[in-house]
């Protein structure tokens, strides 16, 4: 009875990896995989140690984005979460970035970085604008590119042990996956300055106080809370949700383009290579701080 009132069903049909004929194929790669059940897509991140976003993850994200376009017409919600204990996502794969930049000349390295950023922007813009409600269920480390992935979602549900941080300045860079324009869109510029210019991390309670996080839940409860929210979202008309979302959540395209340009300009400076090397070689307990 309670299940019926809450809109749950006894026979949940899960289609994992290979979706049924009217849908596209799924992806069960090494970095992420997704399931679709009862109009809710769950995208699980599972690349150890903490879902660092490098070229392999990006390829899988692009496959997911392509599938999302095919699935979204029959989907109410997308939940993105991590299966790994350390956290949601530690951001860009800085080791890969450093190693690749060592093998290329400067012009080639900048071209590679720009290409990577444009590709990940396409994916995040698609998630941002998807005509369904998107929820990031986060815990632990939600840093840099991981924070930016969460910001592309409509709502963030945070485990009380989640931490958010933009540590990019320590590398001589700014966030490159759309973080500043999206945070500016959603919150005041003062919050952006606090996070960016100090490089400090916020806990979930602080993040909720400033309006970044929708709900703070107990340890290990973020995915459960996101699923409960998704159940509620199934009650709403899809077309109305899509119209409302388009109205209230415009994509800041111009600033996103500027962000890529600024990132690429900064990337050519020697301080970046020094910052990347320091990070890669660090044994510091807080390597994300300058």
């Amino acid at each position: 009875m309670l299940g019926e009132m809450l809109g749950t069903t006894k026979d949940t049909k899960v289609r994992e990896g290979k979706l049924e004929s009217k849908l596209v194929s799924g992806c069960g790669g090494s970095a992420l995989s997704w399931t679709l059940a009862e109009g809710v897509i769950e995208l699980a991140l599972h690349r150890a140690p903490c879902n660092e976003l490098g070229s392999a993850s990006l390829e899988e994200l692009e496959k997911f984005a392509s599938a999302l376009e095919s699935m979204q017409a029959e989907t109410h919600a997308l939940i993105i979460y991590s299966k790994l204990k350390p956290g949601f996502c530690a951001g860009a794969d800085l080791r890969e970035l450093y190693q690749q930049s060592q093998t290329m000349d400067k012009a080639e390295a900048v071209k590679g970085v720009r290409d990577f950023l444009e590709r990940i922007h396409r994916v995040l813009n698609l998630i941002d604008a998807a005509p369904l409600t998107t929820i990031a269920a986060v815990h632990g480390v939600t840093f840099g590119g991981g924070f930016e992935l969460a910001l592309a979602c409509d709502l963030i549900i945070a485990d009380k042990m989640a931490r958010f941080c933009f540590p990019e300045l320590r590398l001589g860079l700014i966030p490159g996956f759309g973080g500043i324009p999206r945070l500016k869109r959603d919150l005041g510029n003062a919050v952006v300055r606090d996070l960016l210019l100090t490089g400090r991390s916020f806990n979930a309670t602080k993040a909720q106080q400033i309006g970044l996080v929708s709900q703070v839940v107990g340890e290990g409860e973020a995915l459960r809370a996101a699923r409960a929210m998704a159940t509620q979202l199934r009650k709403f008309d899809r077309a109305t949700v899509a119209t409302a979302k388009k109205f209230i959540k415009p994509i800041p395209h111009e600033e996103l383009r500027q962000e890529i340009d600024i990132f690429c300009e900064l990337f050519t400076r020697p301080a970046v290579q020094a910052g990347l090397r320091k990070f890669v070689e660090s044994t510091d307990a807080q390597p994300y701080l300058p």
Partner: protein
Amino acid sequence: MPTAEQTLDEILNLAAAHFRVPREKLAPDDDFFKTLGLDSLQTLDLLTKLENHFRVELPDYELQGVSDFRTLAGKIQARL
């Protein structure tokens, strides 16, 4: 408001419980990185636990270079 000694005691209790170390093995002047064997992710965990427990904000940069429980207690006490 708790005294500095009470804050220190609470930190030691919390660290012992969270990292499953016998409380009697932790002393105020211990290097907690060594005693608890903390890596960077566990350090973040400890920071979050402390902020949640004491309901304070502890900017990461204020804790850089802090490695013993007593100094940590002083940083928290200053924000209570």
